[in-house]
């Protein structure tokens, strides 16, 4: 049986770990609240953007724009959004798994635009091609950051370096459910277009200024930017949600261990008292 001192030391160390996880949980709870609020506030913009773009596409029908047809290149650009810090449960590894295993992409075809150090490091280790890293922007995602990133990706797309653009991020369903999601940004998916076309038939009177082609040319980059921004914001909310959950279970695990150790400690203490008593009684008996 471990000595009393050992048990006491162990308990102390677990207690201080528990204090840290508790504090981290509180911090991420506050951050989550803020991130959630931001995500909700910006939702109106994305819904509107999505509706407008789909109605544009529904109206314009069979356009021959490169944004809709995809490039010739087999390469795929993937924007991978993870966090800079760990201790968020499976948050980062789920995204990495999504890209490396579930997506079905070939390693050689991918060009990674990493946002978040953890994802970049993991994908780098697996030998993926990291084109650039913008890990700073995940700390405080601003719309201008998303604009800059989307213009760089779109440039590669128009230059023909990549044929498709994806974004891998963790969708924030609610505080406890976060789903790793792989979304195709470009080319805009044709089947989605058709299905929306029927839905929006009544709205098809919409006209465009300057004209359909040019409007599309200008709207699509904004659409991509807004999806990237939405991805960033949801990812931040998910990250804090995931960390909150991870820290919550760490705290309760620590609690459990402390209970167990307290029991062992008390037992050991009682054992040593009993032993001492037995020794004293035995000693007294020997004298008399």
């Amino acid at each position, binding site marked *: 049986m471990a000595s009393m001192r050992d048990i006491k030391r162990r308990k102390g160390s677990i207690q201080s770990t528990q204090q840290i996880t508790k504090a981290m949980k509180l911090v991420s709870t506050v951050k989550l609240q803020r991130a959630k609020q*931001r995500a909700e*506030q*910006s939702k*109106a*913009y994305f819904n*509107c*953007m999505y509706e*407008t773009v789909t109605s*544009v596409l529904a109206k314009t029908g069979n356009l021959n724009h490169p944004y809709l047809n995809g490039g010739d290149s087999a390469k795929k650009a993937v924007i991978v959004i993870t966090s800079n810090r760990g201790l968020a449960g499976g948050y980062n590894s789920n995204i990495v798994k999504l890209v490396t295993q579930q997506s079905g992409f070939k390693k050689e075809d991918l060009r990674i635009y990493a946002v978040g150090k953890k994802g970049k490091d993991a994908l780098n280790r697996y030998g993926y091609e990291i084109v650039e890293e913008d890990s700073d922007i995940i700390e405080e995602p601003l*719309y201008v950051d998303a*604009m800059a990133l989307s213009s760089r990706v779109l440039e590669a797309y128009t230059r023909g370096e990549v044929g498709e653009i994806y974004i891998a991020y963790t969708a924030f369903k609610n505080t406890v459910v976060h789903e790793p999601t792989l979304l195709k940004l470009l080319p805009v998916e044709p089947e989605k277009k058709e299905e929306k076309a029927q839905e929006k038939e009544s*709205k098809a*009177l*919409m*006209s*465009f*200024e*300057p004209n359909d082609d*040019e*409007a599309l040319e*200008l*709207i699509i980059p*904004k659409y991509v*930017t*807004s999806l990237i*921004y939405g991805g960033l914001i949801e990812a931040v909310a998910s990250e804090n949600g995931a960390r909150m959950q991870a820290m919550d279970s760490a705290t309760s695990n620590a609690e459990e261990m402390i209970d167990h150790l307290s029991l062992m400690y008390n037992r050991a203490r009682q054992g040593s008292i009993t032993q001492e008593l037995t020794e004293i009684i035995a000693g007294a008996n020997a004298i008399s």
Partner: protein
Amino acid sequence: MAENDNRFTLKVITPDRVFYEEQVTMVEFNTIEGEVGIYKEHIPMTMIIAPGILTITQENETKEAALHAGFAEVLQDKVTILAEIIEWPVEIDLKRAEESKERAENRIKEHAPGTDMKRAELSLKRAVARINAINYQ
């Protein structure tokens, strides 16, 4: 005609917030095809916004804001502006706007090789829009 009949809903949304949502009688802004003013019952249309001033007219007051980028969806009884960047005059730093105007003008004047003229022009337009929005008040 009842007074309320010529009003429509104007909604200005930015990525971060709902900037403005109220009943208005007229809205004016700048598009890449020139300035437009929109009343109720306008034909449905989508327009791309160029840097300029957004003027909102209600029954007895007008409001201005500097609108820099985005696009507008016009329906008969509703106008939605998806603005990437928009500011109320009180939010604008006049000194900064003037500085950036000067910077952009210099860049255009010098026309040094490697200068992104389109970007310089755009930033000049933005600065001018900001300054105008303040001076309107």
